[in-house]
């Protein structure tokens, strides 16, 4: 256990320093490398924590297990869990997943085995939650932004128990 890379919680991100930074990054383009340090977002922290790839501490050396991290990171962020569900589902399927363009339930998704930075993300994945409607204008605008960034739009429908089904969506001209 002691060999696992340590990450330090700073607000809702976590930082990994030293040689571990690159090691964790290499496991699947996790986080953003900034001056030799790796900065992980909330969903990345949870994914690596759940898979027991990292340890999470705060500045007073308190360690956080996965459930505690979920509680902490979803404070003031009711969408956090759903964002995590979608993120981890795509990751488990082997895709490289990066944040989308907006604050919405949206990710840029690279094909399996892609090298981030060498090629653009192939898909824009947008989450829809059972029980909540989406406005036509919103659908039109997502579809448009996918089109402009030359990505395939994938709608991820998340049911009330967290199961996800994906649909390829395209605006067509008849």
């Amino acid at each position: 256990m002691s060999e696992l890379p340590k990450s330090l919680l700073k607000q809702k991100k976590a930082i990994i320093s030293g040689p571990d930074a690159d090691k964790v990054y290499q496991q699947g383009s996790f986080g953003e490398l900034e001056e030799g340090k790796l900065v992980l977002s909330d969903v990345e922290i949870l994914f690596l924590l759940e898979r027991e790839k990292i340890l999470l501490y705060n500045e007073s050396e308190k360690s956080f297990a996965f459930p505690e991290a979920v509680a902490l990171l979803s404070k003031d962020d009711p969408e956090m869990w759903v964002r995590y569900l979608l993120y981890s589902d795509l990751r488990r399927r082997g895709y490289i997943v990066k944040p989308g363009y907006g604050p919405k339930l949206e990710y840029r998704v690279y094909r399996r085995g892609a090298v981030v930075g060498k090629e653009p993300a192939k898909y824009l994945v947008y989450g829809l939650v059972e029980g909540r409607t989406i406005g036509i204008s919103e659908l039109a605008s997502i579809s448009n932004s996918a089109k402009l960034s030359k990505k395939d739009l994938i709608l991820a429908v998340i049911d009330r128990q967290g199961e996800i089904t994906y649909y390829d969506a395209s605006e067509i001209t008849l």
Partner: protein
Amino acid sequence: MVETDVVEASLYGSRVLVWSKEDGAKLYKSGFYGKPLNVNKPKDASDLNAYLELSPLEANYLLEKGVIRVRSGRSRLTKERFLKLSRGHYRLFDELYAVYKDLRGKGYVVRPAMKFGADFAVYQYGPGIDHAPFIIHVLPNSADIDPIEIVRAGRLSHTVRKKFVLATIDKVQKKVLYYMFNWWKA
């Protein structure tokens, strides 16, 4: 069109009938308008000899185009009056009509698709000629789409093996938008 060429149609309740079999055959042949009474899937339209029933969408479209006249009892209905009556007889009439007009305007043959569980079947040439029509489901104007609609659309495409399309009306751009959804094997 010369005034005498205008086809007479009659409204009974909410249904529109063309009593002249000759005119009915002409309408049907001119773009697969209507349903010949008691003829299922007419094989050869050339010897069609039946009364013709027009759907309210078709009748409004043909009235607007000046192809038909619609009578109710002894009075002739204006297109405004007939449109108003149709709205009362059919849910989402304005939305359906906007989509119908858009597709007919683009030259497609647009037929009902109740049997496919949707609003329209859209053919390039006509039923029986091209075999894989687009199946169109129209969503209400105000719409907020329930994710379940997307799941349904994806499912239907898969099982009916036809291209299933959701149509919505963009009020801002004032145009009809068409979306297709296919199950994505992640």
